[in-house]
């Protein structure tokens, strides 16, 4: 499993790019989901649990991206200037770590409003 993942990372294919951008996708989906179901949550308050579940689920998915990016950073000692596959992975892994961490913060921030703000009550 770990070897297959490393092979995918070295290949520079879709799984690698997904791991780097997963936080942005998760944040977009989270924002859209919460905004589109706010009216429903007003009518059925129990739906708030689905919103919390979405927040937790999307954070978990982003954390998986963080794990892959961490692996990319740790798997090589090459610097990004080395112009090697390892150097590229190191740089992109760092980009993914920063982006995913930032997006986890955004998802949390969006999720926090659910129990505290009750605009429809």
């Amino acid at each position, binding site marked *: 499993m770990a070897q297959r993942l490393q092979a995918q990372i070295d290949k520079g294919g879709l799984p690698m*790019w997904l791991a780097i951008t997963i936080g*942005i996708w998760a944040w*977009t*989906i989270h*924002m*859209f989901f919460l*905004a*589109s179901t*706010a*009216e429903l949550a007003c009518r059925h308050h129990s739906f708030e649990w689905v919103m919390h579940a979405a927040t937790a689920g999307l954070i978990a998915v982003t954390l998986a991206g963080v794990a892959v990016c961490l692996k990319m950073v740790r798997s090589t000692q090459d610097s990004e200037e080395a112009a090697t596959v390892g150097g590229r992975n190191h740089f992109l892994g760092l980009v993914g770590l920063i982006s995913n961490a930032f997006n986890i913060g955004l998802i949390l921030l969006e999720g926090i409003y659910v129990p505290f703000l009750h605009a429809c009550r």
Partner: protein
Amino acid sequence: MLLTITTEAMIFGGLLSSYFFIRATSKEWPPHGIEPPELGRIIFFTVILLGSSFPVIYAEHAIKKGNIRGLRIGLAMAFVMGLIFIGNQALEYRDLTFGWRDNAYGSLFYLITGLHGAHVVGGLLMSLVVQIKAWTGRFSAKRHRTVQVFGMYWHFVDVVWIFVFSSLYLSAHL
């Protein structure tokens, strides 16, 4: 292309969220005097747009096997279907009873559908370039990255429409 698509998804995600935000804070939706969008016609053209992904998939499979003719047919079919969809959008704009400056609903409706339409037009232009390359023999079973990149973009435009259609057209009737 994945990074471009990610950025585009953020833009659409933001716009659609603002649509729902304004909707949730409004007493009446769509605003007084505006009928919810007609569904029958748009469902037909939605099927056409979403269906246009299949010829693109066919074209991608065809070129992987070195079938240039299949590639040309698939791309041409998707192009015509996209053109039909965008033609309907132009006609729909002509028939709408509200303008983009009338209220927030109008602004968001025109902005979101217009932005999506612009992406379809962008996809059609990309398709033209890919078709010209296909007709001039630039692709082979081993060399067809442009077709894959175009396919990714076209599928994305179709997936975005599912969200736009559900949000602006379907949900307005709920």
